[in-house]
């Protein structure tokens, strides 16, 4: 079947990184209080994920086949330095783009969603293009979850909520309900 489409939709909706794998929760709960910041963080994350997918593929193909035990250290070190390098590059080449997502880049590098992407793509044995599509789906899915929660939170700021539940507790429960809604996407590809 359409392998790429299945990978993309699976990462985007059915197995959304935030809502079913709980990856990238720190920015999900910490930053998602305004729509604009969420969208920009999502953009930056998608970008880093694409870079990560390329790095992971290169590492897996050329280095880690000989030394699988170095996987974790290689992923962390290489991804962090590549992202830092690209950050410098963007700063030089396009100050506008840097302003849009630059401040988030160092934050994202230590995000578990990035490392998770590299590890999941490796475990599933994805090739180069599959990895790119997977990263794209996961990144857009992350953005989608972030923006949805930000929208809900902006609304709830204005409503009268008991003081006790305000804050992380309520955000988690909202996230739980969102996650339930996303469960509806399961089976999207098996009914055919």
């Amino acid at each position, binding site marked *: 079947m359409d392998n790429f489409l299945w990978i993309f939709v699976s990462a985007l909706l059915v197995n959304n990184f935030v809502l079913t794998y*709980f990856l990238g929760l720190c920015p999900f709960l910490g930053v998602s209080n305004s729509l604009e910041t969420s969208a920009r963080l999502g953009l930056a994350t998608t970008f880093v994920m694409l870079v990560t997918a390329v790095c992971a593929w290169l590492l897996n193909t050329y280095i880690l086949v000989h030394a699988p035990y170095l996987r*974790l250290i290689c992923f*962390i070190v290489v991804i962090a330095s590549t992202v830092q390098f690209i950050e410098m590059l963007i700063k030089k080449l396009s100050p506008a783009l840097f302003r849009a997502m630059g401040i988030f880049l160092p934050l994202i590098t230590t995000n578990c969603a990035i490392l998770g992407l590299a590890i999941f793509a490796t475990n599933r044995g994805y090739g180069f293009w599959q990895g790119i599509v997977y990263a794209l789906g996961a990144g857009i899915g992350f953005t989608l979850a972030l923006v949805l929660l930000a929208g809900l939170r902006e609304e709830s700021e204005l409503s009268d909520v008991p003081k006790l539940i305000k804050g992380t*507790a*309520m955000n988690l429960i909202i996230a739980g309900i969102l*996650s339930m809604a996303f469960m509806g996407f399961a089976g999207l590809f098996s009914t055919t």
Partner: protein
Amino acid sequence: MKKNPSREELLKGIWRDNPVFVQVLGMCPMLAVTNSAINAVAMGMATFFVLVGSSFLVSTFRHLIPKQVRISCFIIIIATFVTIADYTLLALVPGVHKELGAFIPLIVANCLILGRQEAFASRYPTKLAVMDAIGMASGFVLALLSLGSVREILGDGALFGIKLFGENFEPWVIMILPPGGFLTLGVILLFFNWFKSKKDEFLEEVAAAQRSES
């Protein structure tokens, strides 16, 4: 009460500064694997090992690590311990390793561990640092275990795989699915908020009573 500094460090992580329920740290690997008590314990033990091991090393060598490269050094140390934990689990308990899957390497990205190295282990003597790590890690294990137990009991009617209820128990499946993780943690945080506000009220009353006495 006599204040014993190392006991203080040990105890604060378990309740007052519980990394999960009070500081809300290290959730990424936590929620995903707490769908059963046994998974939660395995994940907790792995994190315990990594946190205590890295704190010990970081604290011992804290004078040798230059400030400029400390984060890189911490990450290398943590990643080494995680890799060791990963292979050990794979060799000893392949079944559990399969369940936890990709979430063991993700311990590296647990902000709790790097946070403790930066905030505590790199500044204090080894004994205190290890005590702090043991306390924080125990708090983390307890948090994982309570989440895992609640979710397994409600979602599967069992604890550590042993059925608790009779045939007629209809499991609340959603609790062992991802939404259950969010909901359970949300409700537990709610409970902690409630407890804290009650405590604050109580302390205020005591203070008021003392004022009126004097």
